[in-house]
């Protein structure tokens, strides 16, 4: 399975902010297990909070990685804050809004808001906040070496950038 937890990029300001959208579908296998009723309760499909964090990490990670045209290996190093007020369920649409708070050669900190589209009023309502810290691992190896190839930003990320018309950000 492709480990992509965003579907498309909807807003991008270089070095500043990025929005990405995730549509939740009942066809996603993980939702069948979370929760499957094995605990004796009624089965119900809820997107795991950890995957919402991953969606924000991918959004913010692309934003941070794009600053240096994806030459740096940007990895999630710390989850500074997660507050999720409501569940996300199939049929809903999430928007991850990430902003770079601070960035230097060693890493970056980002702040983020998670919104959910309310089909009733057509508005995006805030359902959570996720702040993250990313490390540029080539500059933080403590003597360890990593492969030359950028294993963080794979073809899946490239595909999302191309689909959003952001090909210019990919270092050729």
């Amino acid at each position, binding site marked *: 399975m492709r480990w992509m937890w965003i579907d498309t990029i909807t807003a991008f300001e270089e070095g500043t902010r990025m929005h990405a959208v995730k549509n939740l579908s009942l066809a996603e296998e993980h939702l069948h297990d979370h929760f499957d009723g094995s605990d004796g309760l009624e089965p119900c499909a809820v997107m795991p909070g950890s995957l919402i964090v991953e969606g924000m990490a991918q959004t913010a990670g692309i934003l941070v990685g794009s600053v240096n045209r994806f030459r740096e290996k940007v990895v999630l190093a710390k989850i500074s804050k997660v507050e999720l007020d409501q569940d996300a369920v199939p049929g809903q649409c999430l928007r991850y809004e990430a902003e770079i708070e601070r960035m230097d050669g060693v890493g970056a900190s980002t702040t983020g808001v998670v919104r959910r589209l309310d089909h009733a009023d057509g508005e995006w309502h805030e359902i959570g906040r996720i702040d993250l*810290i990313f490390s540029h691992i080539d500059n*933080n190896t403590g*003597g360890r070496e990593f492969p030359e190839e950028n294993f963080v930003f794979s073809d899946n990320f490239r595909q999302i950038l191309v689909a959003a018309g952001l090909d210019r950000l990919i270092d050729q």
Partner: protein
Amino acid sequence: MAVISRDEIFDKIKDVLENALGADSDEITMDATLIGDLGAESIDFLDISFKLEQEFSIKIDQGELFPENLMSDDTLVVDGKLTDKAMEILREKMPHVDFTKLDEQRSVDQLSEVFTVASLVDFIERKTAA
């Protein structure tokens, strides 16, 4: 920049550490070590550094507050011990840190003992007075 008292600096640093390390307020004393007592890990130093910049409206250069990449330079660490050159560099670059706590062995493992809450307060005091 308005002069800020040592007590005010300590209070703000306390907030930063509570936030960055999830440490309890009463654990954060001047003598508490960041790693041993407050449970900081390497990436937390980046977090602390970013948060101090915001809190005090200052710019902290890479390697200014905490040493970086010591281990990857074999002129600085030999057999797990800090060399004379390493000590010279550390003392010059980090006047906010009291290195007298290191014993004659100067093991790199001991370095975690010298980075205390007091060393952060000293660092900010120097930085905001500059």
